[in-house]
């Protein structure tokens, strides 16, 4: 086993990686099977490239690849059996593409090209031999020959790709696909299949992937707003209401919507958790009266919070932690998520979830109402753009801080609390992703009549943040890097890596990244990023606030 794809990878004196069992709970066999699956996806991409030469596509394969990649993101799927199934399916997809390609070649009187290892890979039929096959094809394959920097940059590409695939999958389930995204995903896999060694070339590919992620986030934005309306500022209840209850976590708005429809009129209240808090901003979701509020904080507290939640729980994607005995019977996974021995919902048939919620106690009393406000999507913010611009021009509003990304359990993450709560009162804090939970119950007050904290949405709503930034830059006649804007990004998993690549691809400079830097970025790679993009690790909130304000003095 070798995995260093997330921020909480095991760090010791000898290096940073999980090699026996993931800190996340992923076991060695599952990690190895994920490596096999990724390897197979490269082979599929190679044949897809072959087909593309004949102007042919394969939508089924493209869709399969997105879902398969999603299952390998951090805290998504821990079920070895699921990966055994996906591996078998991947071999079938590869075979179908191979046959189509061979047929196309025959039709054109062309000799089929010979492709490399992944295209020829035959997964073993039993688990033992499958795991033996895994040992040669992991992230570190070839490190003795090519060195750590090359391995690290290949890892950056693979992990960034995982984020792109996740966003693209969420958009796809809402009916929004873009050939540009499918092409970029396949291209990156095909590129990785060539075992690249040129650092500069790989860096350019990473930036191209960042651009592709921008398209993926834009597609997901179009999917979400197209289906559920443009988000608008909403006060969300964070304390329980009496009655039966279902808690929905993860990221997927379509699954949430399907559950809301299935429970409409049932008397069961639905609560969002974690990254689904922004769901309340969408008009067509909050139109369901029984979507009563949000429960709990960020993902890392779920074992405690889910234990105390007196109803059924639906996990639509990550982050899933090992279900504790107290709620193991009443938590259900769907979509890419999974845990062995935990009931998985297929086809959005939520009858079992509803049955569980009816049998469980629910909340006995309605607590006094507390709320937090979210739903500051791009339309809402640009709707008050005039007011914002005036406030900046008058000097009432001096600076914007985007403090957001993923949350996590690491003690150093209180930095983000200190930072957001420590910025001067004539500045604004924009946030997105579950990193917001570090400070979203703090009373930020107002500045120039505007709320000082704007929760823009989920991590993929970085798209909204970029649209806002670009609009403001346009209004001030300057570039995004010249705005009084500082980005303080907390990362944990691969969607954040993809977002980071997008920011770098768009030329956003001087990002602060924390709480630690990715383990797959070697000192040499970090050097390149520092030189070219001014990326820096977080230090202390006080020092970093000072640095941000002084370097961007208007």
């Amino acid at each position, binding site marked *: 086993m070798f995995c260093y794809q997330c921020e909480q990878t095991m760090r010791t004196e000898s290096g940073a990686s999980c090699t026996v069992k993931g800190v996340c709970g992923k076991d060695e066999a599952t990690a190895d099977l994920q490596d096999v699956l990724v390897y197979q996806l490269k082979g599929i991409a190679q044949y897809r490239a072959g087909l593309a030469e004949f102007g042919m596509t394969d939508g089924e394969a493209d869709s399969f690849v997105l879902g398969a990649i999603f299952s390998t993101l951090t805290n998504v799927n821990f079920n070895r059996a699921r990966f055994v199934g996906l591996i078998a399916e991947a071999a079938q997809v590869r075979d179908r593409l191979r046959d189509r390609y061979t047929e196309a070649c025959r039709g054109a009187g062309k000799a089929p090209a010979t492709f490399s290892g992944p295209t020829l890979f035959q997964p073993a039929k039993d688990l033992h031999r499958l795991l033996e096959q895994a040992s040669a094809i992991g992230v570190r394959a070839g490190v003795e020959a090519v060195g750590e920097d090359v391995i690290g940059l290949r890892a950056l590409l693979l992990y960034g790709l995982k984020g792109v695939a996740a966003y693209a999958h969420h958009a796809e389930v809402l009916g929004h696909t873009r050939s540009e995204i499918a092409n970029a995903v396949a291209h990156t896999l095909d590129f990785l299949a060539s075992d690249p060694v040129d650092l500069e070339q790989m860096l350019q590919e990473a930036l191209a992937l960042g651009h592709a992620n921008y398209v993926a986030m834009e597609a997901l934005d179009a999917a979400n707003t197209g289906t559920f309306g443009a988000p608008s500022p909403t006060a969300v209840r964070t304390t329980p209401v009496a009655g039966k209850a279902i808690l929905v976590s993860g990221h997927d708005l379509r699954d949430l919507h399907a559950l809301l429809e299935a429970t409409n009129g049932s008397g069961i209240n639905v609560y969002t958790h974690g990254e689904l808090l922004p769901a309340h901003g969408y008009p067509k979701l909050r139109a369901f009266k029984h979507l009563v509020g949000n429960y709990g904080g960020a993902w890392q507290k779920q074992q405690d919070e889910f234990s105390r939640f007196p109803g059924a729980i639906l996990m639509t994607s990550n982050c899933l932690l090992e279900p504790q005995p107290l709620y193991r019977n009443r938590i259900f996974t769907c979509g890419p998520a999974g845990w062995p*021995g935990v009931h998985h919902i297929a086809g959005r048939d939520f009858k079992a979830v509803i049955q569980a919620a009816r*049998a*469980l106690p*629910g909340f006995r009393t309605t607590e006094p109402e507390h709320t937090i406000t979210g739903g500051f999507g791009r339309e809402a913010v640009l709707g008050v753009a005039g007011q914002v611009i005036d406030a900046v021009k008058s000097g009432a509003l001096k600076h914007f801080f985007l403090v957001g990304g993923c949350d996590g359990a690491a003690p150093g993450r209180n930095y983000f609390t200190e930072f957001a709560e420590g910025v001067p009162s004539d500045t604004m804090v924009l946030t997105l992703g579950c990193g917001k939970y570090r400070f979203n119950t703090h009373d930020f007050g107002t500045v120039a009549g505007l709320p000082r904290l704007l929760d823009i949405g989920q991590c993929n709503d970085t798209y909204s943040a970029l649209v806002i930034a670009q609009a403001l830059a346009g209004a001030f006649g300057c570039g995004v890097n010249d705005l009084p804007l500082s980005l303080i990004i907390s990362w944990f998993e691969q969607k954040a890596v993809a977002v980071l690549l997008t920011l770098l691809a768009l030329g956003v400079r001087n990002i602060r990244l924390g709480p630690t830097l990715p383990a797959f970025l070697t000192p040499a790679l970090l050097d390149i990023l520092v030189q070219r993009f001014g990326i820096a690790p977080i230090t202390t909130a006080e020092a970093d606030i000072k640095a941000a304000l002084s370097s961007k003095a208007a």
Partner: protein
Amino acid sequence: MPEVTLETRDNSQVVFSCPEGQFVLGAAEAAGLYLPAICRDGVCGACHAHVSKGRYNHGPIAQSALTDAPSGGVLLCRCRPEGDLVIRVPYPKEDIRTQPLVPRESTIVELTRVGAGYITLKLALTPDPELGIAAEFLPGQYMEVGIRDLPLRRAYSLANLPNWDGQFEFLIRKKPGGVFTTWLDKYARVGDKLQVRGPLGRFVLDEISPRPRCFIAGGFGFGSVLSMLRHLAQFQDTQSTTLIFGADQQHEQFGVGQIAEVKAALPMLRVIPTVWYPRAGPNGFARVLQEFAALLQQSPEHPDVYVCGPQEFLEGVRAVAGTHQVPANQIFTEQLL
């Protein structure tokens, strides 16, 4: 006031006060910490722990419940601090509950004799608007079953699967002269009320383990193993699974129907029927242990072993496993009391 520090198996610490003269178990509960325990009477051994520092008073206890008293072994229900204590407990912090388990009323919906020695008992939770009607447990866990207002509680393993209908199923071996099983056998009727408290116990499946599984059960501990097998069947588990099933005697009918039902749902389950001849001594459980040894001999990989039974039987299983170098952390046992 003496302070008690519990050091858990996962290196966590839990601290609470215990007035002199009070038992550690009771003081923990007063502090909102519910430690694994059953009889609270110095008999069953469920609250066994090790004092690593401090002085204490101990007793009275049943001889069989504690064998390592000289090296600091204690039963927390019978341990009274004489000063600050540091106690090592053999479970992780997550096993210490912070919510009390409320006894629930249930109704007997089925009471069937199976052969000469067994009773199938099915209970239905009384619906409660505040507590709901979910029968939540992990396969392998047990419930404390008792008669309201009587100081009579027994621990029985759940044989069915967790469900939302409040149904609990137990396969109970009649204990000759046993008060509770005699009452069940001779006096209990469908419609009678029983109290249930739980779920309890840590004898549960390791779902992550990639290894083959070997279950050993029979007249003893079949309920928990049956629940685990039913769970594997429900999830269409594909790992190699063997059940060594020991009947009390040849042509014993107990368990036959349930095994057939599980085998139909889990086709790759291999069943090795044998006979227990249960009794202590050098030949006790000999046939079952022989089958187990033969299985270990033939297996290309050491399985995870799940077994529930009396102490002597578990010792026999551990001895056989030991001679075949099966790692201790692959042996999951629950001692019947």
